[in-house]
Protein backbone atom coordinates (compact mmCIF):
# COMPACT_ATOMS: atom_id res chain seq x y z
CA UNK A 1 0.00 0.00 0.00
CA UNK A 2 1.29 3.39 -0.94
CA UNK A 3 2.08 5.56 1.98
CA UNK A 4 -0.13 8.59 1.95
CA UNK A 5 0.75 11.35 4.32
CA UNK A 6 -1.69 14.12 4.97
CA UNK A 7 -1.41 17.00 7.32
CA UNK A 8 -4.51 15.74 9.11
CA UNK A 9 -2.88 12.39 9.80
CA UNK A 10 0.30 13.89 11.18
CA UNK A 11 0.34 14.81 14.83
CA UNK A 12 0.91 18.50 15.50
CA UNK A 13 4.02 19.04 17.60
CA UNK A 14 2.87 20.17 21.05
CA UNK A 15 5.22 23.14 21.28
CA UNK A 16 3.15 24.63 24.07
CA UNK A 17 3.79 21.63 26.33
CA UNK A 18 7.41 21.29 25.32
CA UNK A 19 8.18 24.91 26.12
CA UNK A 20 5.76 25.28 29.02
CA UNK A 21 7.06 22.30 31.01
CA UNK A 22 10.47 21.61 29.50
CA UNK A 23 12.00 25.02 30.05
CA UNK A 24 10.96 25.44 33.71
CA UNK A 25 12.22 21.90 34.36
CA UNK A 26 15.59 22.71 32.78
CA UNK A 27 15.80 25.96 34.74
CA UNK A 28 15.05 24.22 38.04
CA UNK A 29 17.61 21.51 37.28
CA UNK A 30 20.23 24.12 36.50
CA UNK A 31 19.43 26.03 39.72
CA UNK A 32 19.73 22.78 41.69
CA UNK A 33 23.07 22.12 40.04
CA UNK A 34 24.45 25.60 40.80
CA UNK A 35 23.28 25.57 44.41
CA UNK A 36 23.80 21.98 45.55
CA UNK A 37 26.42 20.50 43.24
CA UNK A 38 28.94 23.23 42.46
CA UNK A 39 27.74 25.46 45.31
CA UNK A 40 28.43 28.83 43.67
CA UNK A 41 25.01 30.36 44.38
CA UNK A 42 22.28 30.09 47.01
CA UNK A 43 18.54 29.91 46.42
CA UNK A 44 18.03 33.49 47.65
CA UNK A 45 20.10 34.67 44.70
CA UNK A 46 17.52 33.25 42.33
CA UNK A 47 14.64 34.72 44.33
CA UNK A 48 16.43 38.03 43.87
CA UNK A 49 16.72 37.37 40.15
CA UNK A 50 12.98 36.72 40.01
CA UNK A 51 12.24 40.01 41.74
CA UNK A 52 14.48 41.86 39.31
CA UNK A 53 12.93 40.05 36.36
CA UNK A 54 9.47 41.10 37.41
CA UNK A 55 10.60 44.73 37.66
CA UNK A 56 12.34 44.77 34.31
CA UNK A 57 9.57 42.74 32.66
CA UNK A 58 6.97 45.24 33.91
CA UNK A 59 8.92 48.07 32.31
CA UNK A 60 9.14 46.23 28.98
CA UNK A 61 5.42 45.47 29.20
CA UNK A 62 4.54 49.15 29.68
CA UNK A 63 6.52 50.13 26.59
CA UNK A 64 5.39 47.14 24.53
CA UNK A 65 1.73 48.07 25.05
CA UNK A 66 2.25 51.27 23.08
CA UNK A 67 3.78 49.39 20.14
CA UNK A 68 1.03 46.83 20.08
CA UNK A 69 -1.84 49.34 20.39
CA UNK A 70 -0.60 51.50 17.54
CA UNK A 71 0.13 48.47 15.38
CA UNK A 72 -3.30 47.06 16.11
CA UNK A 73 -5.04 50.14 14.87
CA UNK A 74 -3.00 51.56 11.98
CA UNK A 75 -0.64 48.64 11.27
CA UNK A 76 2.38 50.86 11.90
CA UNK A 77 5.47 49.79 13.77
CA UNK A 78 5.96 53.09 15.53
CA UNK A 79 9.73 53.28 15.72
CA UNK A 80 9.47 56.64 17.49
CA UNK A 81 7.90 54.95 20.52
CA UNK A 82 11.26 54.33 22.22
CA UNK A 83 11.95 58.07 21.93
CA UNK A 84 8.52 58.89 23.36
CA UNK A 85 9.53 56.74 26.33
CA UNK A 86 12.77 58.77 26.60
CA UNK A 87 10.91 62.09 26.47
CA UNK A 88 8.52 60.87 29.18
CA UNK A 89 11.44 60.03 31.45
CA UNK A 90 13.14 63.40 30.90
CA UNK A 91 9.98 65.47 31.35
CA UNK A 92 9.36 63.82 34.70
CA UNK A 93 13.01 64.45 35.60
CA UNK A 94 12.71 68.18 34.91
CA UNK A 95 9.46 68.34 36.85
CA UNK A 96 10.67 66.76 40.10
CA UNK A 97 14.31 67.85 40.11
CA UNK A 98 13.74 71.58 39.66
CA UNK A 99 16.71 71.55 37.29
CA UNK A 100 16.67 74.70 35.17
CA UNK A 101 14.79 74.23 31.95
CA UNK A 102 15.76 77.23 29.83
CA UNK A 103 12.83 79.52 29.09
CA UNK A 104 13.13 79.37 25.29
CA UNK A 105 12.94 75.58 25.36
CA UNK A 106 10.08 75.68 27.83
CA UNK A 107 8.26 78.00 25.43
CA UNK A 108 8.95 75.64 22.51
CA UNK A 109 7.70 72.54 24.33
CA UNK A 110 4.73 74.44 25.67
CA UNK A 111 3.81 75.65 22.20
CA UNK A 112 3.93 72.13 20.77
CA UNK A 113 2.01 70.59 23.64
CA UNK A 114 -0.52 73.44 23.87
CA UNK A 115 -1.25 72.97 20.19
CA UNK A 116 -1.71 69.27 20.97
CA UNK A 117 -4.19 70.08 23.76
CA UNK A 118 -6.11 72.34 21.40
CA UNK A 119 -6.10 69.61 18.75
CA UNK A 120 -7.47 67.03 21.18
CA UNK A 121 -10.23 69.42 22.25
CA UNK A 122 -10.97 70.09 18.58
CA UNK A 123 -11.59 66.38 18.04
CA UNK A 124 -14.60 66.73 20.31
CA UNK A 125 -15.62 70.29 19.44
CA UNK A 126 -15.25 69.87 15.72
CA UNK A 127 -13.24 73.00 14.91
CA UNK A 128 -9.81 74.42 15.67
CA UNK A 129 -11.33 77.89 16.00
CA UNK A 130 -14.01 76.94 18.54
CA UNK A 131 -13.70 79.23 21.62
CA UNK A 132 -13.25 76.28 23.99
CA UNK A 133 -10.46 74.92 21.83
CA UNK A 134 -8.58 78.22 21.63
CA UNK A 135 -9.05 78.91 25.34
CA UNK A 136 -7.91 75.38 26.22
CA UNK A 137 -4.80 75.76 24.09
CA UNK A 138 -3.89 79.13 25.63
CA UNK A 139 -4.43 77.92 29.20
CA UNK A 140 -2.31 74.84 28.46
CA UNK A 141 0.42 77.05 26.99
CA UNK A 142 0.57 79.33 30.03
CA UNK A 143 0.41 76.48 32.52
CA UNK A 144 3.09 74.49 30.73
CA UNK A 145 5.50 77.38 30.38
CA UNK A 146 5.16 78.14 34.06
CA UNK A 147 5.42 74.51 35.08
CA UNK A 148 8.42 73.61 32.94
CA UNK A 149 10.51 76.71 33.54
CA UNK A 150 10.00 77.40 37.24
CA UNK A 151 7.96 74.84 39.08
CA UNK A 152 9.13 71.88 41.11
CA UNK A 153 6.68 69.15 42.08
CA UNK A 154 6.87 65.90 44.05
CA UNK A 155 7.43 62.61 42.27
CA UNK A 156 3.77 61.56 42.06
CA UNK A 157 2.81 64.83 40.39
CA UNK A 158 5.88 64.57 38.17
CA UNK A 159 4.82 61.09 37.06
CA UNK A 160 1.23 62.09 36.37
CA UNK A 161 2.11 65.35 34.60
CA UNK A 162 4.76 63.64 32.55
CA UNK A 163 2.22 61.00 31.48
CA UNK A 164 -0.16 63.79 30.49
CA UNK A 165 2.43 65.81 28.54
CA UNK A 166 3.90 62.78 26.82
CA UNK A 167 0.42 61.57 25.93
CA UNK A 168 -0.28 64.89 24.26
CA UNK A 169 3.08 64.67 22.48
CA UNK A 170 2.03 61.27 21.11
CA UNK A 171 -1.14 62.83 19.70
CA UNK A 172 0.89 65.66 18.14
CA UNK A 173 3.24 63.14 16.51
CA UNK A 174 0.30 61.26 15.03
CA UNK A 175 -1.38 64.43 13.78
CA UNK A 176 1.74 65.99 12.28
CA UNK A 177 3.68 62.98 10.99
CA UNK A 178 1.36 60.01 10.52
CA UNK A 179 -2.12 61.31 9.80
CA UNK A 180 -1.19 63.02 6.51
CA UNK A 181 0.02 59.60 5.35
CA UNK A 182 -3.14 57.60 6.01
CA UNK A 183 -3.70 55.56 2.91
CA UNK A 184 -0.09 55.94 1.76
CA UNK A 185 2.01 52.78 1.37
CA UNK A 186 3.05 51.37 4.70
CA UNK A 187 6.74 51.79 3.95
CA UNK A 188 6.31 55.60 3.81
CA UNK A 189 4.79 55.53 7.26
CA UNK A 190 7.60 53.36 8.56
CA UNK A 191 10.29 55.70 7.22
CA UNK A 192 8.44 58.66 8.71
CA UNK A 193 8.43 56.89 12.06
CA UNK A 194 12.19 56.49 11.87
CA UNK A 195 12.51 60.19 11.00
CA UNK A 196 10.37 61.17 13.99
CA UNK A 197 12.58 58.98 16.11
CA UNK A 198 15.74 60.84 14.98
CA UNK A 199 14.01 64.18 15.39
CA UNK A 200 13.13 63.41 19.01
CA UNK A 201 16.60 62.07 19.77
CA UNK A 202 18.26 65.24 18.54
CA UNK A 203 15.68 67.57 20.04
CA UNK A 204 16.36 65.76 23.28
CA UNK A 205 20.09 66.43 22.94
CA UNK A 206 19.50 70.14 22.41
CA UNK A 207 16.67 70.70 24.86
CA UNK A 208 17.26 68.24 27.70
CA UNK A 209 20.93 67.44 28.13
CA UNK A 210 23.85 65.78 26.38
CA UNK A 211 24.89 63.75 29.42
CA UNK A 212 23.82 60.79 31.41
CA UNK A 213 21.53 62.21 34.09
CA UNK A 214 21.09 61.01 37.67
CA UNK A 215 17.44 60.27 38.38
CA UNK A 216 16.73 60.52 42.10
CA UNK A 217 13.36 61.95 43.06
CA UNK A 218 12.68 62.32 46.77
CA UNK A 219 10.86 59.13 47.56
CA UNK A 220 11.12 56.25 50.02
CA UNK A 221 10.37 53.76 47.29
CA UNK A 222 14.00 53.53 46.22
CA UNK A 223 15.17 52.63 49.74
CA UNK A 224 17.12 49.39 50.05
CA UNK A 225 15.38 46.34 51.31
CA UNK A 226 16.77 43.01 52.35
CA UNK A 227 15.09 39.91 53.60
CA UNK A 228 16.13 36.38 54.46
CA UNK A 229 14.65 33.52 52.51
CA UNK A 230 15.63 29.85 51.98
CA UNK A 231 18.79 30.21 54.04
CA UNK A 232 20.11 33.26 52.22
CA UNK A 233 19.58 36.99 51.91
CA UNK A 234 17.90 38.84 49.06
CA UNK A 235 19.15 42.37 48.47
CA UNK A 236 16.66 44.56 46.68
CA UNK A 237 14.70 47.78 47.06
CA UNK A 238 11.12 48.76 47.71
CA UNK A 239 10.77 49.19 43.98
CA UNK A 240 10.07 45.44 43.92
CA UNK A 241 6.58 46.45 45.08
CA UNK A 242 6.14 49.80 43.37
CA UNK A 243 7.00 48.83 39.79
CA UNK A 244 4.92 45.64 39.40
CA UNK A 245 1.97 47.12 41.31
CA UNK A 246 1.91 50.36 39.36
CA UNK A 247 2.20 48.38 36.13
CA UNK A 248 -0.66 46.11 37.17
CA UNK A 249 -2.81 49.15 37.98
CA UNK A 250 -2.11 50.78 34.62
CA UNK A 251 -2.68 47.56 32.68
CA UNK A 252 -5.94 46.96 34.54
CA UNK A 253 -7.07 50.51 33.84
CA UNK A 254 -6.27 50.05 30.15
CA UNK A 255 -8.13 46.73 30.04
CA UNK A 256 -11.18 48.27 31.69
CA UNK A 257 -11.00 51.15 29.23
CA UNK A 258 -11.03 48.94 26.12
CA UNK A 259 -13.65 46.52 27.41
CA UNK A 260 -16.06 48.78 29.30
CA UNK A 261 -16.10 52.25 27.78
CA UNK A 262 -17.68 53.33 24.55
CA UNK A 263 -14.49 54.89 23.19
CA UNK A 264 -12.49 51.80 24.20
CA UNK A 265 -14.90 49.52 22.38
CA UNK A 266 -14.75 51.82 19.38
CA UNK A 267 -10.97 51.40 19.54
CA UNK A 268 -11.25 47.62 19.34
CA UNK A 269 -13.83 47.88 16.57
CA UNK A 270 -11.55 50.20 14.56
CA UNK A 271 -8.62 47.84 15.06
CA UNK A 272 -10.67 44.93 13.70
CA UNK A 273 -12.31 46.71 10.78
CA UNK A 274 -11.76 50.44 10.40
CA UNK A 275 -14.07 50.90 7.42
CA UNK A 276 -17.03 49.26 9.09
CA UNK A 277 -16.31 51.18 12.29
CA UNK A 278 -16.57 54.34 10.24
CA UNK A 279 -19.90 53.15 8.86
CA UNK A 280 -21.16 52.90 12.44
CA UNK A 281 -20.39 56.60 12.85
CA UNK A 282 -17.14 56.05 14.76
CA UNK A 283 -14.68 58.89 14.19
CA UNK A 284 -11.64 56.77 13.41
CA UNK A 285 -9.19 59.68 13.60
CA UNK A 286 -10.38 60.42 17.13
CA UNK A 287 -9.92 56.77 18.03
CA UNK A 288 -6.39 56.75 16.61
CA UNK A 289 -5.53 59.94 18.54
CA UNK A 290 -6.77 58.24 21.72
CA UNK A 291 -4.58 55.25 20.96
CA UNK A 292 -1.49 57.45 20.68
CA UNK A 293 -2.49 59.32 23.85
CA UNK A 294 -2.78 56.14 25.90
CA UNK A 295 0.25 54.39 24.40
CA UNK A 296 2.45 57.42 25.05
CA UNK A 297 1.12 57.83 28.59
CA UNK A 298 2.11 54.25 29.35
CA UNK A 299 5.53 54.85 27.80
CA UNK A 300 5.99 57.92 30.02
CA UNK A 301 5.11 55.89 33.10
CA UNK A 302 7.61 53.30 31.88
CA UNK A 303 10.24 56.02 31.44
CA UNK A 304 9.75 57.34 34.95
CA UNK A 305 9.94 53.87 36.48
CA UNK A 306 12.95 53.05 34.30
CA UNK A 307 14.74 56.05 35.83
CA UNK A 308 13.83 54.91 39.33
CA UNK A 309 14.92 51.36 38.61
CA UNK A 310 18.37 52.25 37.27
CA UNK A 311 18.93 55.49 39.19
CA UNK A 312 19.94 57.41 36.08
CA UNK A 313 18.87 58.19 32.54
CA UNK A 314 21.14 57.58 29.61
CA UNK A 315 21.68 60.56 27.30
CA UNK A 316 18.63 61.34 25.11
CA UNK A 317 20.07 60.14 21.80
CA UNK A 318 20.52 56.57 23.01
CA UNK A 319 18.22 56.15 25.99
CA UNK A 320 15.15 55.13 23.99
CA UNK A 321 16.82 52.87 21.45
CA UNK A 322 17.57 49.63 23.24
CA UNK A 323 14.51 49.61 25.56
CA UNK A 324 12.46 50.57 22.51
CA UNK A 325 13.53 47.73 20.24
CA UNK A 326 13.48 45.23 23.10
CA UNK A 327 9.93 46.21 23.95
CA UNK A 328 9.09 45.95 20.26
CA UNK A 329 10.55 42.44 20.30
CA UNK A 330 8.42 41.74 23.38
CA UNK A 331 5.30 42.90 21.55
CA UNK A 332 6.07 40.63 18.58
CA UNK A 333 6.91 37.69 20.84
CA UNK A 334 3.60 38.08 22.66
CA UNK A 335 1.71 38.59 19.42
CA UNK A 336 1.62 42.09 17.99
CA UNK A 337 -1.78 43.72 18.14
CA UNK A 338 -2.71 41.87 21.32
CA UNK A 339 -2.74 43.67 24.69
CA UNK A 340 -2.28 40.57 26.87
CA UNK A 341 0.40 39.49 24.39
CA UNK A 342 2.41 42.64 25.02
CA UNK A 343 2.28 42.12 28.79
CA UNK A 344 3.22 38.45 28.51
CA UNK A 345 6.00 39.19 26.02
CA UNK A 346 7.39 41.97 28.23
CA UNK A 347 7.44 39.82 31.35
CA UNK A 348 8.93 36.90 29.45
CA UNK A 349 11.73 39.12 28.18
CA UNK A 350 12.43 40.47 31.67
CA UNK A 351 12.75 36.93 33.01
CA UNK A 352 14.80 35.73 30.09
CA UNK A 353 17.33 38.53 30.41
CA UNK A 354 17.86 38.10 34.12
CA UNK A 355 17.77 34.34 34.27
CA UNK A 356 20.12 33.70 31.39
CA UNK A 357 22.77 35.73 33.20
CA UNK A 358 21.88 34.28 36.62
CA UNK A 359 21.91 30.69 35.37
CA UNK A 360 25.24 30.98 33.58
CA UNK A 361 27.56 32.88 35.93
CA UNK A 362 31.31 33.21 35.56
CA UNK A 363 32.78 29.82 36.43
CA UNK A 364 36.42 28.97 35.98
CA UNK A 365 37.35 29.70 32.36
CA UNK A 366 33.74 30.28 31.38
CA UNK A 367 33.19 34.08 31.38
CA UNK A 368 29.43 33.95 32.00
CA UNK A 369 26.67 35.28 29.83
CA UNK A 370 26.39 38.78 31.34
CA UNK A 371 28.05 40.31 28.30
CA UNK A 372 25.40 38.80 26.04
CA UNK A 373 22.45 40.14 28.05
CA UNK A 374 21.08 42.25 25.22
CA UNK A 375 21.14 39.47 22.65
CA UNK A 376 18.63 37.20 24.40
CA UNK A 377 15.63 39.31 23.43
CA UNK A 378 16.50 39.02 19.77
CA UNK A 379 17.45 35.35 19.96
CA UNK A 380 14.02 34.66 21.46
CA UNK A 381 12.43 36.86 18.79
CA UNK A 382 14.02 34.73 16.06
CA UNK A 383 12.91 31.49 17.72
CA UNK A 384 9.34 32.72 18.14
CA UNK A 385 9.18 33.97 14.56
CA UNK A 386 10.34 30.53 13.34
CA UNK A 387 8.09 28.43 15.54
CA UNK A 388 5.02 30.60 15.92
CA UNK A 389 5.14 33.72 13.72
CA UNK A 390 1.90 35.11 15.10
CA UNK A 391 3.38 35.30 18.59
CA UNK A 392 2.41 33.54 21.79
CA UNK A 393 -1.18 34.70 22.04
CA UNK A 394 -1.44 36.28 18.61
CA UNK A 395 -4.18 35.38 16.19
CA UNK A 396 -3.43 33.30 13.14
CA UNK A 397 -2.11 35.79 10.60
CA UNK A 398 -3.38 33.75 7.66
CA UNK A 399 -6.93 34.63 8.81
CA UNK A 400 -6.43 38.26 7.80
CA UNK A 401 -7.75 38.94 4.33
Amino acid sequence: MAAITTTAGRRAIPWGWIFGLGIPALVLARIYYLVNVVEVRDYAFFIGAMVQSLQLGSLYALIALGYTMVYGIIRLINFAHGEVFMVGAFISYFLFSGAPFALPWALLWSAVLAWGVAFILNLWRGSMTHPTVIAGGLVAFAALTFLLSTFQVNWVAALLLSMLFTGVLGVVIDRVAYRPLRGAPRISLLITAIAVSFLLQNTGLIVFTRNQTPFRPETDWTAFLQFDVLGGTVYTSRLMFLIPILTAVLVTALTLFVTRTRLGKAMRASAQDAETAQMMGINVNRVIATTFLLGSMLAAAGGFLWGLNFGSLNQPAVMGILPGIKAFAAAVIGGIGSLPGAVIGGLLLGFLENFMTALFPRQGDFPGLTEFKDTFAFALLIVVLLVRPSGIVGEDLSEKV
Partner: protein
Amino acid sequence: MSDRETLLDMRQVTTHYGPIRVLHNVDMQIYPGEMVCLLGGNASGKSTTLKTILGIVRVSEGEMYFRGERADTLTTAERIERGMAVVPENRRIFPKMTVRENLEMGSYLRNDRKGIREDMDYVISLFPRIGERLNQMGGTMSGGEQQMLAMGRALMSRPKLILMDEPSMGLAPLFVEKIFEIIKTVNDEGISVFVVEQNANVALSVADRGYVLQTGEVVLSGPAQELLANEDMKKAYLGDV
Protein backbone atom coordinates in the same frame (compact mmCIF):
# COMPACT_ATOMS: atom_id res chain seq x y z
CA MET B 1 -45.76 59.80 -5.92
CA SER B 2 -43.75 62.90 -6.68
CA ASP B 3 -45.93 65.17 -4.57
CA ARG B 4 -44.96 63.27 -1.41
CA GLU B 5 -41.98 64.42 0.60
CA THR B 6 -38.87 62.37 -0.09
CA LEU B 7 -36.77 60.68 2.57
CA LEU B 8 -33.73 60.56 0.32
CA ASP B 9 -33.42 62.54 -2.87
CA MET B 10 -30.42 62.25 -5.17
CA ARG B 11 -30.38 64.86 -7.91
CA GLN B 12 -28.01 64.41 -10.83
CA VAL B 13 -25.33 62.90 -8.60
CA THR B 14 -21.94 62.22 -10.14
CA THR B 15 -19.01 60.71 -8.25
CA HIS B 16 -15.39 60.00 -9.06
CA TYR B 17 -12.66 57.71 -7.81
CA GLY B 18 -9.70 59.93 -8.56
CA PRO B 19 -10.04 60.85 -12.24
CA ILE B 20 -12.36 57.93 -13.00
CA ARG B 21 -16.07 58.75 -13.12
CA VAL B 22 -18.13 56.07 -11.41
CA LEU B 23 -21.67 57.43 -11.12
CA HIS B 24 -23.08 59.67 -13.79
CA ASN B 25 -26.09 61.96 -13.18
CA VAL B 26 -27.91 59.49 -10.96
CA ASP B 27 -31.46 60.54 -10.02
CA MET B 28 -33.00 58.48 -7.30
CA GLN B 29 -35.71 58.99 -4.70
CA ILE B 30 -36.71 57.01 -1.65
CA TYR B 31 -40.00 57.84 0.07
CA PRO B 32 -40.78 57.20 3.75
CA GLY B 33 -41.69 53.60 4.47
CA GLU B 34 -40.67 52.41 1.06
CA MET B 35 -38.44 49.53 0.11
CA VAL B 36 -36.33 50.30 -2.94
CA CYS B 37 -33.86 48.01 -4.60
CA LEU B 38 -30.93 48.91 -6.78
CA LEU B 39 -30.04 46.27 -9.36
CA GLY B 40 -27.16 45.88 -11.71
CA GLY B 41 -24.29 43.67 -12.73
CA ASN B 42 -20.73 43.69 -11.54
CA ALA B 43 -18.96 47.05 -11.58
CA SER B 44 -22.17 48.89 -12.41
CA GLY B 45 -21.68 51.28 -9.48
CA LYS B 46 -24.17 49.71 -7.06
CA SER B 47 -21.89 49.69 -4.03
CA THR B 48 -20.56 53.13 -4.93
CA THR B 49 -24.11 54.48 -4.88
CA LEU B 50 -24.52 53.12 -1.37
CA LYS B 51 -21.19 54.53 -0.24
CA THR B 52 -22.13 57.90 -1.75
CA ILE B 53 -25.39 57.96 0.17
CA LEU B 54 -23.46 57.19 3.35
CA GLY B 55 -20.75 59.75 2.68
CA ILE B 56 -17.81 57.35 2.37
CA VAL B 57 -17.52 58.44 -1.27
CA ARG B 58 -17.92 62.17 -1.96
CA VAL B 59 -20.41 63.66 -4.41
CA SER B 60 -18.46 65.55 -7.09
CA GLU B 61 -21.47 67.01 -8.94
CA GLY B 62 -25.15 67.17 -8.11
CA GLU B 63 -27.00 67.35 -4.82
CA MET B 64 -28.33 64.97 -2.23
CA TYR B 65 -31.07 65.63 0.31
CA PHE B 66 -31.92 63.51 3.34
CA ARG B 67 -35.17 64.28 5.21
CA GLY B 68 -35.37 67.61 3.41
CA GLU B 69 -31.86 68.65 4.45
CA ARG B 70 -28.89 69.05 2.15
CA ALA B 71 -26.85 65.94 2.96
CA ASP B 72 -23.95 65.69 0.53
CA THR B 73 -21.85 68.05 2.68
CA LEU B 74 -22.43 66.11 5.91
CA THR B 75 -19.94 63.66 7.39
CA THR B 76 -20.78 59.97 7.68
CA ALA B 77 -21.31 60.35 11.42
CA GLU B 78 -23.71 63.26 10.89
CA ARG B 79 -25.70 61.27 8.34
CA ILE B 80 -25.95 58.36 10.77
CA GLU B 81 -27.11 60.73 13.52
CA ARG B 82 -29.85 61.96 11.18
CA GLY B 83 -31.17 58.45 10.62
CA MET B 84 -29.12 56.37 8.20
CA ALA B 85 -27.80 52.94 9.05
CA VAL B 86 -25.91 50.41 6.99
CA VAL B 87 -25.70 46.65 6.67
CA PRO B 88 -22.42 46.33 4.80
CA GLU B 89 -21.48 43.86 2.12
CA ASN B 90 -20.35 40.55 3.60
CA ARG B 91 -21.96 41.68 6.88
CA ARG B 92 -18.63 42.82 8.33
CA ILE B 93 -19.35 41.77 11.89
CA PHE B 94 -16.55 42.70 14.33
CA PRO B 95 -15.16 39.18 14.80
CA LYS B 96 -13.37 39.63 18.13
CA MET B 97 -16.17 41.47 19.84
CA THR B 98 -19.14 39.84 21.50
CA VAL B 99 -22.56 39.91 19.89
CA ARG B 100 -23.67 42.41 22.52
CA GLU B 101 -20.71 44.69 21.78
CA ASN B 102 -21.44 44.45 18.07
CA LEU B 103 -24.96 45.68 18.76
CA GLU B 104 -23.58 48.46 20.96
CA MET B 105 -21.42 49.66 18.09
CA GLY B 106 -24.64 50.17 16.13
CA SER B 107 -25.83 52.63 18.78
CA TYR B 108 -22.42 54.29 19.06
CA LEU B 109 -23.65 57.82 18.40
CA ARG B 110 -26.65 57.65 20.75
CA ASN B 111 -26.67 58.83 24.34
CA ASP B 112 -30.15 57.80 25.55
CA ARG B 113 -29.38 54.70 27.61
CA LYS B 114 -33.03 53.85 28.12
CA GLY B 115 -33.80 54.02 24.42
CA ILE B 116 -30.74 51.91 23.61
CA ARG B 117 -31.87 49.23 26.06
CA GLU B 118 -35.36 49.24 24.54
CA ASP B 119 -33.93 48.86 21.07
CA MET B 120 -31.66 46.05 22.22
CA ASP B 121 -34.75 44.24 23.53
CA TYR B 122 -36.56 44.96 20.28
CA VAL B 123 -33.72 43.51 18.20
CA ILE B 124 -33.62 40.43 20.42
CA SER B 125 -37.38 39.95 20.06
CA LEU B 126 -36.95 40.23 16.29
CA PHE B 127 -34.02 37.79 16.19
CA PRO B 128 -34.25 35.43 19.20
CA ARG B 129 -31.15 33.58 17.94
CA ILE B 130 -29.09 36.70 18.62
CA GLY B 131 -30.49 36.97 22.13
CA GLU B 132 -29.24 33.45 22.89
CA ARG B 133 -25.71 34.35 21.83
CA LEU B 134 -25.13 37.79 23.33
CA ASN B 135 -21.83 36.84 24.96
CA GLN B 136 -20.44 34.84 22.08
CA MET B 137 -17.77 36.32 19.78
CA GLY B 138 -19.19 37.71 16.55
CA GLY B 139 -16.69 35.76 14.46
CA THR B 140 -17.97 32.41 15.74
CA MET B 141 -21.48 32.92 14.34
CA SER B 142 -22.71 31.27 11.15
CA GLY B 143 -23.25 33.32 8.01
CA GLY B 144 -26.99 33.56 8.55
CA GLU B 145 -26.63 34.55 12.18
CA GLN B 146 -24.10 37.19 11.19
CA GLN B 147 -26.58 38.58 8.69
CA MET B 148 -29.17 38.87 11.48
CA LEU B 149 -26.59 40.48 13.72
CA ALA B 150 -25.61 42.98 11.02
CA MET B 151 -29.30 43.78 10.57
CA GLY B 152 -29.75 44.14 14.33
CA ARG B 153 -26.67 46.34 14.56
CA ALA B 154 -28.16 48.65 11.95
CA LEU B 155 -31.48 48.78 13.82
CA MET B 156 -29.67 49.81 17.02
CA SER B 157 -29.27 53.35 15.73
CA ARG B 158 -33.08 53.60 15.42
CA PRO B 159 -32.73 54.52 11.75
CA LYS B 160 -35.19 56.03 9.28
CA LEU B 161 -33.40 54.43 6.37
CA ILE B 162 -31.43 51.19 6.29
CA LEU B 163 -28.93 50.75 3.49
CA MET B 164 -28.15 47.13 2.66
CA ASP B 165 -25.30 45.98 0.45
CA GLU B 166 -25.82 42.55 -1.15
CA PRO B 167 -27.60 40.84 1.73
CA SER B 168 -27.87 37.59 -0.24
CA MET B 169 -24.13 37.36 -0.93
CA GLY B 170 -22.67 34.05 0.15
CA LEU B 171 -25.84 32.68 1.70
CA ALA B 172 -27.70 29.46 0.88
CA PRO B 173 -30.81 30.02 -1.32
CA LEU B 174 -33.14 28.98 1.47
CA PHE B 175 -31.57 31.54 3.75
CA VAL B 176 -31.72 34.26 1.12
CA GLU B 177 -35.51 34.04 1.17
CA LYS B 178 -35.48 34.12 4.94
CA ILE B 179 -33.30 37.22 4.99
CA PHE B 180 -35.65 39.00 2.63
CA GLU B 181 -38.56 38.03 4.87
CA ILE B 182 -36.66 39.67 7.73
CA ILE B 183 -36.02 42.75 5.61
CA LYS B 184 -39.75 42.85 4.83
CA THR B 185 -40.54 42.60 8.55
CA VAL B 186 -38.28 45.54 9.31
CA ASN B 187 -39.76 47.48 6.40
CA ASP B 188 -43.29 46.78 7.70
CA GLU B 189 -42.27 48.55 10.92
CA GLY B 190 -42.12 51.72 8.86
CA ILE B 191 -38.37 51.84 8.30
CA SER B 192 -37.38 52.57 4.73
CA VAL B 193 -34.99 50.07 3.19
CA PHE B 194 -32.61 50.55 0.30
CA VAL B 195 -31.21 47.26 -0.95
CA VAL B 196 -28.34 46.90 -3.37
CA GLU B 197 -28.67 43.42 -4.84
CA GLN B 198 -27.50 41.20 -7.67
CA ASN B 199 -30.21 38.65 -7.06
CA ALA B 200 -32.86 40.63 -8.95
CA ASN B 201 -35.63 38.02 -8.66
CA VAL B 202 -35.71 37.89 -4.90
CA ALA B 203 -35.17 41.61 -4.45
CA LEU B 204 -37.96 42.62 -6.81
CA SER B 205 -40.39 40.14 -5.29
CA VAL B 206 -40.34 42.06 -2.00
CA ALA B 207 -39.40 45.62 -3.00
CA ASP B 208 -41.83 48.41 -3.87
CA ARG B 209 -39.70 49.97 -6.55
CA GLY B 210 -36.43 49.32 -8.30
CA TYR B 211 -33.66 51.09 -10.17
CA VAL B 212 -31.34 49.41 -12.62
CA LEU B 213 -27.80 50.70 -12.87
CA GLN B 214 -25.47 50.13 -15.80
CA THR B 215 -21.91 51.52 -15.89
CA GLY B 216 -22.88 54.22 -13.43
CA GLU B 217 -26.10 55.36 -15.07
CA VAL B 218 -29.71 54.60 -14.23
CA VAL B 219 -31.04 52.83 -17.30
CA LEU B 220 -34.38 51.62 -15.98
CA SER B 221 -36.61 52.38 -13.03
CA GLY B 222 -40.15 51.80 -11.90
CA PRO B 223 -42.45 49.77 -9.64
CA ALA B 224 -41.11 46.30 -8.88
CA GLN B 225 -43.95 44.51 -10.69
CA GLU B 226 -43.30 46.46 -13.87
CA LEU B 227 -39.61 45.66 -13.75
CA LEU B 228 -40.35 41.99 -13.21
CA ALA B 229 -42.49 42.05 -16.34
CA ASN B 230 -40.07 44.11 -18.43
CA GLU B 231 -38.66 42.22 -21.42
CA ASP B 232 -35.16 43.79 -21.36
CA MET B 233 -34.99 43.17 -17.67
CA LYS B 234 -35.88 39.51 -18.12
CA LYS B 235 -33.15 39.03 -20.68
CA ALA B 236 -30.45 40.91 -18.83
CA TYR B 237 -30.95 40.17 -15.16
CA LEU B 238 -33.77 37.84 -14.29
CA GLY B 239 -32.48 34.93 -16.29
CA ASP B 240 -36.04 33.88 -17.25
CA VAL B 241 -36.60 31.78 -20.34
